[in-house]
Structures are given as C-alpha cells and as structure tokens.
C-alpha cells in the first residue's frame, strides 16, 4: 500500500515537472515552428505546428533586416568589454569589504544594497547629460566608465557575490604570504583572485547576459551609433518596412508573424549557444558562489 502511494506521488511529480517544462519551452517551440512557415502555412488552419516545407525565406529577410553580422559583432563587443571590467572592479570592491576593517564599512554595505533597489530611471538622465558634455554619447564609454567604478548593470549583486565569497574563504594562506613579506596587491592577485575563479566565471556569465539584453540604457546612450542585436529587434518592424516598402506592392511581401519569429530567434540564438556551453555554471551558480549565505 505504501509503495503504491509512493509510486503515485513520484508519477505526479514527474508529470508536473514535464508539464511546467513544456509551458516554459512553449514560446520557444512556437518561435521555431512559426519561423519556418510561408504565407500559405500561416493562413492554413490545418497547419498548426509542423510547416509543410522547409521554408528559409523568413530567415533571409530577418538576417537582412537585423544586419546580422555587424549587429552580432556589436552585441558581443557591448556585452563582453563592460562585463569583464565590471567583474574585475567589483571583485576589488568585494575583497576590500571582506578582508579589511574600517570606519563606515557598514554604511557602504548598506549603500551597495540600496543602489540595487534604485531604478536606473532615477540616474539615467543626469548620466546622459554628463556623457553628452563629455562627448561620449554613441560610444561604448557610457557603459565602460560606470563598470570601472563598480556602478554598472546590477554591480551590487556582483560586489555582494565577491564579498560573500572572500568572507567564506579561509584567511590562512593570505596571512602566511603576509608574513613572508608579500604586499596587499600581490596577495590579492596571486592568492585571492585564483581562489575566486568560480565566482568570477558565474559573475561574468550573468553580467554578459544582462549587458547583452539591455535595451533601455543602450538605446539612450548609444543613439544610432552602436546597433546591437537587441536594439535591432526593437526596431525590427520599422527597419523591415524601410527596406521592403517599395517591393511590398510587387511581391506582396509585408511583414508577418513568421518573419518576426525568425528575427526573434536569430537574436536569441547566440545566447542559447552561450547557455548550452555554460549551462552547468548558470544552474549551479547559487551553490558555487554562496550568494544566499548567512
């Protein structure tokens, strides 16, 4: 009797997990399925999930509209450089807070948490004016400068990750090095940084993804100068009409669901690949960094 009960509860558990998993993946299946449909399939009520033929025209248009190669390179560049700088400097801040005692440390920790709560809308307009005065609008410096000073996208989280990590890490090695006469910078670079590699990798992948997906600040600070994939998708419909407006009447090629979905899929494709490479690190991030620590 007890075995039957256990079996039923297990079966129910798997059923629920699979059901939720399906709900989670539904938009992605939807995207893939629709992106291969031609106009006939779209209006045909009998074609629900599987397109009648392998139709690639949507992808051709979407690649063209997104200006894929250039945008992809911009996206990588916009995500990579600020996120690398951000984690390097956040780790310096986190180390300083974890290893040294000084007046006002508690206030700083409080302010770090407080900055996490402040919406970027409160600071972005004066920041925009400042970059404008410095002639930095349309350049990547508008992302690089805050990152260097630990004020980038969600920097607070990364500072806290490093703070937590260095606090948990035993001090003995560093103290031994200090007795041997090593200075603080050497200790940090030679002992603390190598020990924190998991925290660096987890912080890097999150920072990379958040910078990649940013659209409000990048639209404001980059203007029309830097066009990332995310911004390209934001203006997808308008760009499409610009490129194909003359030919709509001749070929009947107006924008439709299928082209939209192809564009969306192309935008997230690099991130999907990135996710499957680093999947383990994403999913185990909380365990590896101990961010929820006491």
């Amino acid at each position, binding site marked *: 009797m007890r075995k039957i009960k256990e079996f039923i509860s297990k079966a129910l*558990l798997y059923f629920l*997990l699979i059901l*939720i*998993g399906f*709900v*989670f*993946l*539904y*938009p*992605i299946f*939807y995207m893939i399925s629709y992106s291969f449909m031609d106009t006939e399939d779209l209006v045909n009520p009998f074609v629900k999930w599987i397109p009648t033929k392998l139709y690639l025209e949507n992808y051709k248009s979407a690649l063209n509209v997104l200006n894929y190669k250039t945008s992809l390179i911009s996206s990588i560049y916009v995500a990579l450089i600020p996120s690398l700088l951000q984690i390097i*400097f956040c780790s*310096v*801040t986190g180390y*300083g*807070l974890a*290893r*040294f*005692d*000084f007046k006002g440390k508690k206030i*700083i920790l409080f302010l770090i948490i407080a*900055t996490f709560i*402040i*919406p*970027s*809308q*409160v*600071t972005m*307009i*004066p*920041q925009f*004016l*400042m970059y404008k005065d410095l002639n930095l609008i349309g350049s990547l410096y508008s992302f690089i400068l805050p990152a*260097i*000073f*630990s*004020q980038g996208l969600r920097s607070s989280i990364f500072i806290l990750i490093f703070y937590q990590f260095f606090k948990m890490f035993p001090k003995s090695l560093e103290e031994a090095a200090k007795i041997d006469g090593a200075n603080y910078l050497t200790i*940090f670079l030679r002992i603390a940084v190598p020990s924190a590699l998991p925290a660096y990798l987890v912080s890097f992948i999150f920072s990379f*993804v958040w910078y990649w*997906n940013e*659209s*409000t600040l990048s639209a*404001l600070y980059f203007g029309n100068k830097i066009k990332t994939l*995310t911004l390209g*998708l*934001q203006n*997808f419909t308008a760009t499409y009409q610009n490129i194909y407006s003359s030919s709509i009447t001749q070929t009947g090629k107006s924008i439709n*669901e299928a082209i*939209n*979905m192809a564009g*969306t899929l192309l*935008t*997230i494709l690099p*991130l999907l690949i990135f*996710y499957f490479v680093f*999947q383990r690190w994403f*999913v185990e991030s*909380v*365990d590896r960094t101990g961010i*929820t620590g006491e």
Partner: protein
Amino acid sequence: MKLKNKNALMGIIFVSGWIIGFLVFTLVPIIRTIWFSFNNVKFTANGIKETYVGLLNYKNAFLLDPVFTDYIIEYISQMLIFIPIIVTFSLIAAIMLNKKIKGKGFFRTIFFLPVIITSGPVMQKLIEQNATALPGVYKYFSMEYLAKNFGIFGNLFGMVLNSFIMILWFSGVQILIFIAGLQKLDKSVYEAASIDGASKWQMFWKLTLPALMPVISINVVYTLVTLSNFALNHIVQKISNDMYDITKGIGYATALAIIYFIIILILLSVFLLITKNKDGEKYAKN
C-alpha cells in the same frame, strides 16, 4: 594600533573605486534628478537652462498627464499580483526540484533557460505574436467578457492569463535561490518531527516555511527590482520617451522618475513588512 590603521587604509584603497563611482554615477545624478524635477529644463546653445517651477511637474504628472496615473495603478496592481505568483511558483518548483528525482539537472536547465533570453525586445515580439499566453486559453476566456463583467479585476485576470508564461519566465533565479535555501535546512529537525508524528503538510507550514522567510524576502526584493527595471514596463518606457518630448522635457521626466522611485520604495516596505511579520510569529510560537 599601527597595523590596524594600515589595515583600514588598505580597505579604503580597495573600496575607493566604488566610493568615487557611487558619488559620480549614483549620488550626484540622484541629486541632479531631484533638482531637475523642480525645474523646467531646456536645451539652449549655451547648454541646458533651468527655470525653477516648484511642484508644477509633479502636479502635472497627476493632474494633466492622460496616462501616467493609469500606468501607476497598472504597475502597482501588477506588482501585487505578479510578485506573489512568481515567489510562490518558484518555491513550489524549488521544492519539486529538491526531491530525489532523475533528470534534476535537465529540469533545472529548462526552468532556468528564460533568464538568459528575457530581454525587452524579445518579450515584446513574443507577446505581440501571442506566444506567451497559456496555450488554448483563448478558447475558454474572452478578454472583453472579463473586462466588461469584472472591471479592473477582470482586466488583471486577463493580464495574468495573457502573459502567464512571461510571469513564470521571471522565476529562474528565484528557483535557484530557494533550492540553495532548502539545502541548508537542518535535516535532524525533520527527523524529530516525523518521529513525533507530524505529516509532510504540517512540516512544510511549521518548519520549512518559517525557516525560509529570509530567503523569501530576498526573492521578493529581487523580483520587485527585476520587474521594475524591465524594459517593457510602461512607466520605464514613458520616462525615456518624455525626456525627448518638447512639451514635457527633462524636468518632467525626472519628476516621473522620482515618483516611480517612491512608489517602488513603498511597495518594497509593504512586502518586507509582510514577510518579516511571519518571521516574528515563528519566534513567538517557539
């Protein structure tokens, strides 16, 4: 004493980058935002020109703006509904994923996938194309029917159905945080409870939930901040747009930002008060 001073000095050197950054990129901008919000700000050939107007921008936001008050009401009701849904869902998902099951890693990978792809433009496209509504929901519920018969609640219910998947998509990080919290629970307490004849249900309410309260607070804050900064949020979009609007301008946009920030703070304190209260009860009972 000397060593202590040196130690303190090194600490300040390590943190100095953050201190400068905080002053330049956070504190001064906040002060300027507050100042701008009491002014009419105009671009001229000689830079920006400010004229003090007092509370006019704030007054206009509530009295003249045709959409802002609606956006605020919409935002507050979204937070009041979405945050409990997301936090509850991620707790349930974490409990399921914490059980001894095969394919744990596989399910975790799927549940976490949305975290990397939920950018504003991607969600915008998915919502536009109806890819985020629960499959089949449209057959059973008509949004117009709901709106007509149940007023604002019907609207909200429709909103939940309409973007159901999107709401769940915001739960990835929270699930991980809950799993980490669950793994830290003291197993011996559960053994003792089960010897005393407590059912699983009782154990959840009396042991798991109170012990997880701090983690719940963390997740509430994380969810609130993520949703409030999300690019599809109407208020976020409006602040960016109004900045360039000639009739409204920077002064007006900054006033909206300040109001928005105050609302976020109020919501945050309400939620933290609720989660903190339950924590207090736990100690009272012990």
